[in-house]
């Protein structure tokens, strides 16, 4: 019952957050200089006026009212830059690409990172152990903007193992995923290792071991369930960020995802697309955080009543 009311509260909070995000983004876009129809070649005044009329760009408040009404009906409006395309169509075309990229990245990062974290915990201290820890630090320090072009140059241009651009066929997906995943994998490995190590030092673990329970049983039934919680808390916001698109990787590998859509919309002042994508991000972040909360609550009974 506690969990259900918690979920309901969170859902209502999410709606308020979405409205706030929409309103703030809408307002901020009207404050920055430059509009969607500014171009290198100046439009004659009458053409510019006709365009404003065509897209219903009147007083700001009436624009806001119309836009809000449209959003409530599920209509995010037309793209100003990509004429003939609606924001909903653009989002529908782009989010599966970013989602797929994010999903593979997080799958690799979760499997690799949690397994590595556990291995670091269970393995004996020594050179391999230290090497693994140092490697994690190194991977955390190499940003995608460095790793992506490097992998692209070496493995695509020089060795011709993978395509350098595009998002079709499984071979084209390896380099983008391998560019994005390492830093999350390393972070997850370290967080998992730290979380598990803390749990291992607790009295209840020593008691369980003293009572004669097997090390594997103690690890999987007690230590893992508690030690993984920091990693799950980390995964909530991280997943939403990765799933919603990463501009750098999409740009380096020419992937038609949400990150590029947003960046191009910002530089082109495509107001409707910007608000649409930001709203989509806000929704995704809310959902991911909600899922992380539910998972944590399931793993930790003390959080259910909170």
């Amino acid at each position, binding site marked *: 019952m506690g969990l259900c009311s918690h979920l309901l509260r969170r859902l209502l909070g999410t709606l308020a957050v979405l409205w706030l995000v929409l309103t703030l983004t809408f307002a901020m876009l009207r404050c*920055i200089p430059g509009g969607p129809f500014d171009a290198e070649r100046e439009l004659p005044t009458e053409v*510019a006026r006709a365009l404003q009329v065509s897209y219903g760009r009147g007083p700001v408040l009436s624009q806001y009212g119309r836009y809000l009404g449209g959003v409530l009906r599920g209509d995010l409006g037309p793209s100003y830059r990509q*004429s003939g395309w609606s924001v909903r169509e653009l989002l529908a*075309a782009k989010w599966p690409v970013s989602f797929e990229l994010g999903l593979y990245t997080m799958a690799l990062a979760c499997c690799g990172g949690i397994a590595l974290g556990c291995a670091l915990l269970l393995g004996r201290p020594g050179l391999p152990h230290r090497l693994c820890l140092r490697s994690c630090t190194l991977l955390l320090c190499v940003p995608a903007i460095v790793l992506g072009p490097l992998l692209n140059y070496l493995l695509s241009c020089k060795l011709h193992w993978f395509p350098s651009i595009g998002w079709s066929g499984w071979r084209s997906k390896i380099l983008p995923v391998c560019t994005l995943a390492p830093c999350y994998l390393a972070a997850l490995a370290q967080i998992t290792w730290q979380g598990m190590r803390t749990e291992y030092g607790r009295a209840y673990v020593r008691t369980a071991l003293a009572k004669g329970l097997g090390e594997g049983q103690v690890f999987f039934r007690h230590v893992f369930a508690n030690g993984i919680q920091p990693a799950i808390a980390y995964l909530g916001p991280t997943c939403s960020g990765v799933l919603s698109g990463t501009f750098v990787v999409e740009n380096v590998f020419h992937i038609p995802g949400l990150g590029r859509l947003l960046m191009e919309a910002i530089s082109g002042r495509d107001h409707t697309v910007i608000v649409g994508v930001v709203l989509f991000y806000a929704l995704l972040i809310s959902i991911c955080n909600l899922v992380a909360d539910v998972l944590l609550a399931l793993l930790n009974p003390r959080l259910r009543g909170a």
Partner: protein
Amino acid sequence: MEARLWPCALALSLLAAGCGGRSGGEDGAGTLRLGNAAEPNTLDPQRMMDFSPIFIARGLFECLVLLDDATLCPLPGAAERWEISEDGLVYRFFLRPDGRWSNGEPVVAEDFVQAARRILSPRLASPTVDLYFPLKNAQAHYEGRVPWDEVGIRARDRMTLEISLERPTPYFLALLAHPAWSPIPRPCIEAHGGWERWDSDWTRPGNLVSNGPYRLEEWRVGDRIAIGKNPFHRSAGDGGPERVIFFPIVDQQTEQNAFDCGELDATATVPAELLDELRGRADGTLQETESLGCFYYLCNCSRPPLDNGHLRRALALAIDREELCRLIHRDVRFAAGNLVPAGTGGYRYGGRETLGRDPRMAREELAAAGFPGGAGLPPMTLTFNHSSLHRLVAQAVQEMWRRELGIAVELRCEDWKAFLHSRRVGNFAIARGGWVGDFNDPLTFLGLFVGDSPNNFVRWRDEAYDGEMRAAEEEEDRGERLRHLESAEDRLLREMPIIPLYFETHKRRVAERVRGWRPNLLDYHLYQNVRLR
């Protein structure tokens, strides 16, 4: 031992199977793959003004005339021949009897009339409507002063189009090769509500009907646009590429990587830092040619201190253009001593005002402006949009002004749209400018600085200049007309509302397997003439 090794062997073989072979194999040997720099905002030929959609439109739509991609001379396109009246005011075009839309319908003269009718409707808000203004009464109709019946375009019969001009226009045939002059499939556009609406989906695959050698097959926004042969076009069996794919790759290095991987047959750009290396290569993939473009700085003439002509000239004379060209092009040939690139529509500026570096004269001009040695000069800002190239040029020019004139100019970098806004409202002292011609005639450059031009960002109004431009427009004799244009450019360079820096070039890398890709001033290519090995 062997049993333990088999998973490793399996993994290795999977990796080998996945990694083997060349990348980009999904596109067949008959496909021409081109980098296209940016995502086109539309494929409606009457609403496009950027280069990325225009490159695609040249495959999709065929205008009355084509241009020879070596000489840029007009060639028969949708019209198999034409007649021009002796006074140069009436053009009669005879359409090809075998001209077909991609749905098999014949292309008729009325399709061109409808195109004019649509673009001249203010509600369409076409950014290239001015390309129709040489038509008799076109501008007046656009401004609501005369009815449609009085506009100088009509179908004499099903296959004959007659166009009457306001005045003789020597560059009119060159103008007709712009996609804005494509015929329009009215029934198709109306079926999708796109006659006057910008947000119609008539340009989507499956909806778009075109009359060019190719038809639209695929449009994945941000990924690619693919056009395939139009089976109804006369070139369908000629052996050109079966498909052309345009990749809107924004990042220059990504584009170079894709070319090096064999995933692109031609790039849209080449970064300056690669030029020296590529010129030294024996593979001959680098194509460089002059373009119809000039890069210059704009001086805001509407407010002090740059309302002072002496100061503008001082700034212009202090710049070492050859040094700039070494930075940008790695080649000094493209230093701009004037505005209009040589060879534009047969024009070559030979006036008295050609700009060069003259620090002594620059200092004298600065003193004549009332700021000897830069003393008393109010702070000035040089505004440019975010780009590594523009920053490089701005820093170099800033240093030249400091070195030669002793003046400090502040640099201000703005994002693209903010920059356009600043330029439009006149919120700058000096700003990055530049122009790439729409058609092969000096008017495309010199027309920018006529007093009432919407692109006259410098807010410079000069009666003598406007008078020469008017005289050039009204002049029927070609030689006289060019002389008027030269006098106008003389005036521009004497008053210096702009500071020309260098001429733009077209730089592409074109793969060895591509034959018949001929570089030219307009970067104009007919894909059906390209051959792939």
